[in-house]
């Protein structure tokens, strides 16, 4: 923040109004070369809107953008890239069937006469990836790569276009902890070589780890700056939300009752014949939270989908309250008292083009009071929406707003509201707080514990080890489709669970 450095980017009084929402309210900030500037803020604070304006996807209603001290007009992403500003979106814009190199050079092909100069292009890709420590296999097909590597390809794509500023909007939401650490190393490397980075995340630990400076947004306004060296997580959380947030889940010891869910010997192979579920057996009791820890992609998704009837099972059995529900249709399982928060909020849990009101009855629309005789009973559906929006504090201009225009945290609240208000015996929550702000996490965690205390059996699946340890009464660890250990919470230390997650078996005689 030295006075004589020309900022790479200066933003003055950016304002953006959406129907019923002032998403950005006179936002000003500067971005210096060589710094990692983190933006924090609740869901719906306006972070993505601001970045989309900088990247030319939205027009601001007011305000100006200066790049290297000069007024810039950014009408579309091509302008932004031309001015040296790149962005990596959460949903990557890669062509799955092309190679890494082809994806990177797409649209800016080096040519030798009319022919693509493939050799030189892949040479440049290799140079860049070495310069910044971004290891990618240049000739691999993008669709075959893990998410973390795809993200590197996105970053290389921007670097290939000679950007000196890079916006990363929630880059870690889909990464494993290992991949996230790699990303931070790359980010540091980029900053050290003079690039300016904007980094958005909801994970306070990450901010304090990598950021040089923090700007906090709340309800479209800049509410403060913070220094990551000195600010505590609690202080940051309070600044974001505008009140004190209890970061630790407040819960009493569990009081487990009878077995509600009994899963026995599930085995499953995928299309390629690889083992996805390997003889999985678990019990979940009424009044307890069984947490499933594990690096994503170790069979958790399939296990949950098998229980909810979305995944057909060739062998094994699943019982709910002593009744066999193996391979039953999803509706019949739901009707027997199973609530389910799916991991893919936008793709599975909601119909983004539908109103909040309709999403709130997505699984109960056909029953009274929502359907009366042959037709919908609108007053009941409206009343349901009004009540749940109030109880679950969904921030929205109206009940008829589409779910797709809400922020992630509010979308998740709709799902939670819908699932928790049925008469349930078993609650399955898969990645319930991914991409969600600390205030909403607190809320959703408290709701889950409330359900447990009301006597429900809870099966929690999360890639966040901290989340599992905070909520679970027992922790099961999955590795390569197998349950490799079940520990009572008192014995589940970060180290022990971490080792199990990495596939390192405990020796019977200790370590």
């Amino acid at each position, binding site marked *: 923040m030295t006075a004589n450095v020309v900022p790479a980017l200066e933003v003055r009084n950016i304002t953006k109004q*959406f*129907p*019923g*929402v002032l998403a950005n309210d006179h936002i000003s900030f500067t971005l210096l070369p060589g710094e990692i500037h983190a933006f924090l803020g609740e869901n719906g604070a306006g972070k993505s809107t601001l970045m989309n304006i900088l990247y030319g*996807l*939205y027009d601001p209603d007011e305000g100006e953008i200066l790049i290297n001290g000069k007024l810039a007009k950014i009408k579309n992403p091509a302008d932004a890239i031309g001015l040296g500003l790149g962005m990596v979106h959460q949903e990557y814009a890669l062509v799955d069937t092309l190679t890494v190199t082809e994806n990177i050079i797409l649209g800016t092909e080096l040519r030798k006469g009319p022919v693509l100069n493939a050799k030189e292009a892949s040479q440049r890709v290799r140079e860049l990836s070495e310069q910044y420590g971004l290891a990618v296999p240049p000739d691999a097909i993008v669709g075959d790569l893990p998410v973390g590597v795809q993200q590197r390809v996105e970053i290389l794509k921007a670097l290939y276009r000679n950007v000196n500023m890079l916006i990363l909007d929630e880059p870690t939401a889909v990464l494993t902890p290992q991949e996230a650490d790699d990303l931070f190393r790359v980010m540091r490397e980029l900053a050290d070589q003079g690039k300016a980075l904007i980094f958005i995340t909801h994970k306070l630990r990450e901010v304090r780890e990598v950021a040089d400076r923090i700007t906090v947004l709340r*309800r479209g306004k800049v509410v403060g700056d913070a220094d990551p060296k000195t600010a505590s997580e609690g202080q940051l959380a309070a600044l974001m939300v*505008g*009140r004190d947030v209890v970061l630790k889940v407040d819960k009493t010891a569990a009081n487990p009752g009878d077995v509600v869910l009994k899963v026995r010997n599930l085995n499953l192979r995928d299309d390629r014949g690889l083992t996805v579920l390997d003889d999985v057996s678990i019990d979940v009791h009424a009044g307890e939270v069984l947490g499933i820890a594990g690096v994503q992609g170790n069979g958790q998704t399939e296990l949950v989908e098998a229980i*909810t009837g*979305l995944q057909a099972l060739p062998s094994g059995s699943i019982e709910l309250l002593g009744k066999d529900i193996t391979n039953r*249709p*999803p*509706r*019949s399982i*739901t*009707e027997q008292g199973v609530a*389910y928060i*799916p991991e*893919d909020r936008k*793709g*599975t*849990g*909601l*119909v*983004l*083009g*539908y109103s909040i009101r*309709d999403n709130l009855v*997505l*699984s109960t*629309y*056909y029953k009274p009071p929502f*359907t009366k005789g*042959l*037709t*919908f009973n609108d007053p009941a559906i409206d009343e349901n929406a009004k009540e749940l929006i109030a109880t679950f*504090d969904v*921030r*929205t*201009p*109206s009940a008829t*707003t589409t779910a*797709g*225009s809400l922020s992630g945290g509010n979308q998740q609240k709709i799902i939670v509201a819908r699932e928790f208000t049925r008469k349930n015996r078993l609650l399955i929550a898969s990645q319930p707080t991914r991409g969600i702000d600390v*205030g909403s996490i607190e*809320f959703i965690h408290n709701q889950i514990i409330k359900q447990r205390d009301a006597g429900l059996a809870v099966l929690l699946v999360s890639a966040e080890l901290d989340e599992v340890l905070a909520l679970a009464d027992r922790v099961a660890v999955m590795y390569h489709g197998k349950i490799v250990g079940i520990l009572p919470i008192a014995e589940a230390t970060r180290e022990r669970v971490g080792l199990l997650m990495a596939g390192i078996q405990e020796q019977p005689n200790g370590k």
Partner: protein
Amino acid sequence: MANEQQAPAETKKTTEPQPSKRRFGWLNEAIVPLLAILTAVLIGAVIVFVSIPGNKLPTFDLNIYGSRSDWFFSTIPERLRVTLSAFTGLFSGAFGDWTKPSTIPVAISNTLVESTPYILAGLAVAVTFKAGLFNVGAEGQLLMGALGSVAVAAFMPQWFGVASLPAIIHLPAALLAGVIAGGLWGIIPGYLRAKTGAHEVITTIMLNYIALQVMDYLINGVMKDKSATLQRTPFIHENAALPRIISKATDPSLTGGQAYPRLFTTTSSTWDLRIHMGIVLAFLMVGFIWWLMNRTPKGFEIKTVGENPEAARYAGMSITGTVVGAMGLSGALAGLAGTSQVIGLEYNLKAVFSSGLGFDSLAIALLAKSNPIAIVPAALFWGALRTGAGAMQVNTGISINLIQIIQALVIMFIAADQIVRWIYRIKQAEGGKITFNRSWGK
């Protein structure tokens, strides 16, 4: 969760509806289709202007380019006059020559008659668009509907060994037969799609050919009217016919001895109209589909499966049942279109029956963005173009192909709506960059 400091902002936000979006919602939706039509018509006008055979009007020359020297010497005022007359011809063909009021009822009746099957078949396609399916099979379903209804309408008394059946039995039976035949022809591709994944575009196209061959076979075989020189079925029984609304009494000697019903009889040629009860059925169906899609759980399922099948499955809806149901409903509506043509208008089934009705219905559903209410104006527009085209050709010598050019341009502008938005500088709703659904016709 909100503290005092936030509370005022919160209340302000929740009480603020979205006025502009709400009140003029339909206009927002309709603006692109309307501008697409306007643009297509303007381009049509330019085509007439540059290509007319200037000084030879009126003419019956079907070649819109005329001879080269005529084209070269035609003056600008002349061109303007002809261009204008093309469109007045089109208008008076569709809605009557308003300087001669006696031409109006017949013209409007013709337009409505032309539009009736478009409404029904357009609805049929719209239902499948809503479910995320692309039913190219309306043509075949319509033919099967026509076949089913003509079989019952022309032959049913014979099966029971009687001379005739009362209308109260015969007419509903004929309607039902058409609806069921069309419906079954829709269920087949629906079932194949849901159970085997066979894409409905491929299967419906194949079923169109099969329907055409089946019709050909029957009309030349067991269903052929032996006494007729044309390849056609016998005339249907008068008790199975949908009544005309108002017309002169028919001459039974021209219609196989049948005296077809009408609600009002007239002796004036001005009011001798072909419009029949099919249009009433079509409007009833518009209301029914609107009700089904917006007011009932079944419609909600169809829309959800179209918007996001993953979420539909998660919410416990049956994808198979919904896909089969939507295709069956679509087939039934297309079947009703064929039925109303046979028992309301033609009174028999000829080898040259449909002439692409089933394909035009795709365009109509696209133009109406699958909205059941909007199907009505879209179908009327299509019907008016078709009706007016004949008159235009007669009056100005401009080829009927002009209409096909306009229709093609309309479809192109609807499909590539970015062009229209760009021409008229209409901003897309922001956030529209996120594509929520994978379905057609929205």
